[in-house]
């Protein structure tokens, strides 16, 4: 029952059209089983004197007084009948195309929407390739299942059913002999495919292993050659290749046995039908026309049965694909049950005893962190790699959710503020900015698509990017990102900064992003901030003390804890971590001065 629901879930909205397709399909199969009767009619009723086996409505059309006329009529009716059948067949395929494409379309949209809305925690644990595969291969598997396999099952079932029905109408006794061993075909097929399935997997794995060896050897060719170990690689590959060959060969043998044995059973059934057919025909139990029709009808039973077994045996694949899709669909979107409040955000921020532990980590990344920043103030956060600096800001914009404590903005708990609203008003400039494969103009204006050009240029100027852009051949229309021009790390950084400067934001976070630009640009940008965005609360995450020193408040993080907090002066007085750091870094400066002097 759960499976059925799983299968039908994705068909929502397309069920009616699917049912129409099935009805047409059933009609088609019925018509198909009528065709042999035309032959029987000609043999038995036109040339012979038997009663016609054609259904009444067709039989009425082919009445005539001479054999010639009758023949001609049968021909015309048959051609028209076929034409009619072909038209329906085409219509059925058209409908099929409509609903399969529609279903796939809906699935992709739904999945993509869902993926986007899953939490950041989910994405940092998932593999991109895997997710993409789900969006494409798994959707395709289901599309094939619905559009081809399931339809095929219906088609085969009704074809077999109608064929047996027609045979039974012609001669129940003969029917019994004509289908007596067919169940074996179905069962053999079904069981076989269930059993042999794991061999497909074994072969696939062997192939995968071979491809891995190949891949590693190709990408690591410099290492291979540097160690002069070509022969070793060749031996390794030969081994994998032979292994793949052998497993593939085993599978081939298994498949050969399958084809051979089912062929044989089908053959026996044919021989049975033939022998009994001859007997019954000569005995006068059935007519010659009926006998000819039977030979066609068993073809409509035995081959479809074998195919049916294969398809049903193969259903498992779809189940796996659907399970994989469900795994995503069952995850809770980060926007479900999100607060709806969208208060005006001023920029007073308070962290109260905040703790956070990553899902699979044993030690907390942030431990009992408390501090507060007033609107318009600048807060600098210094600390080692892994001390929790970035986690802190990710918590603030609710990319991650805190485990303990509270984060307040303007005195309101951020859990009660809508996420999208929050993120819209807190700007983050990341250390490794991500550029879309669009123009520079669009990349800068990403947050505000209606931003006027002069505003974009102004932002670029402040971010010390404008001159660089002018040097590009296509200026602001240059396509950047993965599929475009590659910018330098510093340029990317400045694009990211410019992005944030398009509209003023109550809160702005520089996540180690000022360190990639040179000191001059750093100062220029900070001056611009002071000038245009005095009311903005600024977080600066940095390892460069000179960047941090002018902040209104400095926090030193170590192992997820606030070690020190205060202004530059206070912290220097403390003689703690910060002043140690200050000494080291100013010493380096001092070193340089000395080198310069020494050189002179």
């Amino acid at each position: 029952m759960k499976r059925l629901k799983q299968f039908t879930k994705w068909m929502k909205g397309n069920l009616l059209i699917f049912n129409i397709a099935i009805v047409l399909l059933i009609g088609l199969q019925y018509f198909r089983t009528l065709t042999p009767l035309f032959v029987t009619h000609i043999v038995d009723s036109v040339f012979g004197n038997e009663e016609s086996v054609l259904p009444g409505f067709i039989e009425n059309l082919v009445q005539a007084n001479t054999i010639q006329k009758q023949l001609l009529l049968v021909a015309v009716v048959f051609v028209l009948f076929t034409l009619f059948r072909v038209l329906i067949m085409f219509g059925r395929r058209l409908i099929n195309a409509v609903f399969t494409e529609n279903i796939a379309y809906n699935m992709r949209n739904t999945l993509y929407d869902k993926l986007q809305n899953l939490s950041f925690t989910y994405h940092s644990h998932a593999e991109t390739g895997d997710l993409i595969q789900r969006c494409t291969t798994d959707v395709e598997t289901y599309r094939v299942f619905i559009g081809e396999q399931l339809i095929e099952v219906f088609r085969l079932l009704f074809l077999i059913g109608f064929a047996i029905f027609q045979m039974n109408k012609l001669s129940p006794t003969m029917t019994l002999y004509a289908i007596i061993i067919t169940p074996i075909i179905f069962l053999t097929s079904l069981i076989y495919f269930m059993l042999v399935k794991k061999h497909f997997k074994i072969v696939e794995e062997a192939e995968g292993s071979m491809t891995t060896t190949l891949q590693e050897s190709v990408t690591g060719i410099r290492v291979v050659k540097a160690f002069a170990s070509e022969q070793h690689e060749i031996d390794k590959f030969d081994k994998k290749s032979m292994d793949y060959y052998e497993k593939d060969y085993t599978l081939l043998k298994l498949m050969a046995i399958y084809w051979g044995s089912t062929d044989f059973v089908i053959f026996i059934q044919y021989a049975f039908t033939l022998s009994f057919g001859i007997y019954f025909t000569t005995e006068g139990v059935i007519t010659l026309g009926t006998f000819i029709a039977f030979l066609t009808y068993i073809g409509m039973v035995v081959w479809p049965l074998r195919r049916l077994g294969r398809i049903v045996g193969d259903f498992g694949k779809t189940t796996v694909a659907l399970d994989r899709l469900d795994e995503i669909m069952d995850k809770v979107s980060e926007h479900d049950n999100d607060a709806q409040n969208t208060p005006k955000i001023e920029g007073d921020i308070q962290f109260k005893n905040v703790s956070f532990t990553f899902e699979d980590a044993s030690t907390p990344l942030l431990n009992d962190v408390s501090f507060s920043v007033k609107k318009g103030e600048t807060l600098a956060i210094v600390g080692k790699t892994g001390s929790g600096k970035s986690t802190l800001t990710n918590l603030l914009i609710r990319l991650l959710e805190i485990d303990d404590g509270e984060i307040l903005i303007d005195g309101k708990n951020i859990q009660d503020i809508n996420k999208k609203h929050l993120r819209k008003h807190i700007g983050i400039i990341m250390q490794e900015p991500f550029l879309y494969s669009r123009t520079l103009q669009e990349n800068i204006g990403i947050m505000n698509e209606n931003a006027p050009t002069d505003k974009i240029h102004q932002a670029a100027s402040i971010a010390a990017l404008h001159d660089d852009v002018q040097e590009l051949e296509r200026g602001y229309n240059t396509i950047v990102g993965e599929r475009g021009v590659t910018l330098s790390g510093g340029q990317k950084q400045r694009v990211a900064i410019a992005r944030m400067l398009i509209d003023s934001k109550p809160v702005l976070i520089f996540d180690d992003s000022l360190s990639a630009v040179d000191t001059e640009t750093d100062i220029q940008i900070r001056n611009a901030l002071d000038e245009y965005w005095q009311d903005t609360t600024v977080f600066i995450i940095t390892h460069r003390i000179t960047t941090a020193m002018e902040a209104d408040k400095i926090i030193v993080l170590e192992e997820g804890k606030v070690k020190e907090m205060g202004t530059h002066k206070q912290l220097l007085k403390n003689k703690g971590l910060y002043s140690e750091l200050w000494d080291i870094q100013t010493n380096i400066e001092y070193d340089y001065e000395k080198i310069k002097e020494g050189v002179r």
Partner: protein
Amino acid sequence: MTNNKDPYQDIDHTKTILNKQQVKERLEKTKDYSKILNTRAGGGRHRVYLGNKATDKIGTIKRIWNYLGNYRYGLITVVFFIFLTSLLAVYLPRLFGITIDRYLKVKDISGAYRMAGIIITIALFNSIARFIGRYTMTIIAQKTVAKIRQDAFDKLQILPVKYYDQNQSGDIISKLTNDVDLISNSLSSVTTELISSIILLIGSLIMMFIVNYILALVVLIFVPIMILFTIKIGKITKKGFVKQQKHLGNLNGIVEESISGIEVLKLYNQEEETLNEFQDKNVELRNAGFKAQVFAGIVMPVIGFINNLIYVLIIITGGLLFVFSIGTVTVGDISAMTQYARQFVQPISNLSQMFNTIQQGLAGAERVFNLIDETSEYEQDGTQFSNAFKGSVTFENITFGYEKDQAVLHDITFDAAPGEIIAIVGPTGSGKTTIINLLNRFYDPDEGEITIDNISSINYKKDNLRAKIGVVLQDTNLFSGTIFDNIHYGDQTATKEEVIKTSKIANAHDFIMKLPHQYETEIYEGGENLSHGERQLISIARTLLSNPDILILDEATSSVDTRTEFHIQESMRLLMKGRTSFVIAHRLQTIRDADKILVIHDGKLIEQGSHQELLKLEGFYHDLYTTQFKEEKIRESGY
């Protein structure tokens, strides 16, 4: 994204490795094996071939034929049985017709049974023959393809690095996987199908004329129509599916971009915009898919219709001939004719599909053969062999370019005495890596001479030279297998004790022992389950085990945690001890320790000397040192 990698740095390894394993297992469990199923089932209908056609078809066929030549008896078996079975298939309808006319109509039961007996025997024999033919062909195809694949791989190993630099690794891999699959498909399915189709086509035609030439002519009318139709519709359908694949590619591009940039997407509230973009592309894909399916959907009904039309015409014409007693037409004849018509038409409607598969196979084969025909780098090799280098290296007026007339290095001259450490510095793209490529003969210089122990390097045997020159690259390139396997790679003859001893020296032993399976820990996906620093340590141990006389180090630029960094520095220093070492240096300490610094800028050696000497020059090095390395130093202070 880096922000979020940090949290993992301190996670204990048991956990990370377990997670990776789980991911891997899950991926394997749910792996899609539809491809293999399709090949077994005779190939999906909708597989479209997107590549180019083969340029030299005859040549390619000859090459394939050469490979097949090893299985002469097998091939004879295949041809014989397929021939036989097709002939029998041609004869069966006739037999059936005779049975109807001679025995069933006159109710000669014993005669009918005799005929039935003959028919059954022939049919049984027929299916056995067909089975043997196909089975043998598939085996031959598999063996041939395995041989081609191994030949291609063997060649890959002896191709110069240049080949790898000029071709994308994905393309190279695709030649040994996809292209080889294409060959396999066309070999195993098409060969037998082609032979039997041709025989059926000709045989049925002859039989039709023997049975009744008037009816045969009726069938023949349809041949041109069928051929034109299948070719035309085949082309349209292919175009449709190509378009569909293109749109699918676009869509995947969006998914990939937005998933790898999910953090930004969320930060910038871009969810709706990208969703809209996605939906637009999705509509395009849906429409393209719809069109492709509709065109593909025309084929079957039309062919079916023509089939039935022929069927009817045979019966009508036959019936009329019978009634008007023109010639001698019997019921059996008509019955036979309908079956012949079917056997005759079937191959024609399959023609375009078969043609397509052959086309693909040939194109794939040509690409693989082109690879096999590439020139081995060992064809031009020196003869000199050295058991151990003392380690003096000179570059004399070396000029080199990857492309003709585009020199990357100009007139480089320097020398290194045995045991010296030479640091190479300069901006990205200035030609540092090229010097290393020349030193271990991944490339040979256009002008000038490199000598090692006073013998020109091109006189040495390449593999001898490379075995004596150890390399630690930035990109560690670990192989799948255990950690032990990876270190052991440095010297395949080393014992387990030697590996452990070396690892200890290289500072890798301690962290390895903390892993859940120690040296037997599996490495996944190039070492993603290890931290960057740990991979570096393994790579160093690997080189140390190979005990080279000359060393090339490409210092990693990416930052690792201080402790590991310290270990790496220490083991690198150990590695360099007593060996002539060339270091592409990024760290201040390394440069200061060097005996000589080479400053490369725009392919020219603009300054060389010791750290102090170069600073005094107040030239390029001085500038580089005061700008680039300052920031480095601040980072090195730990924060």
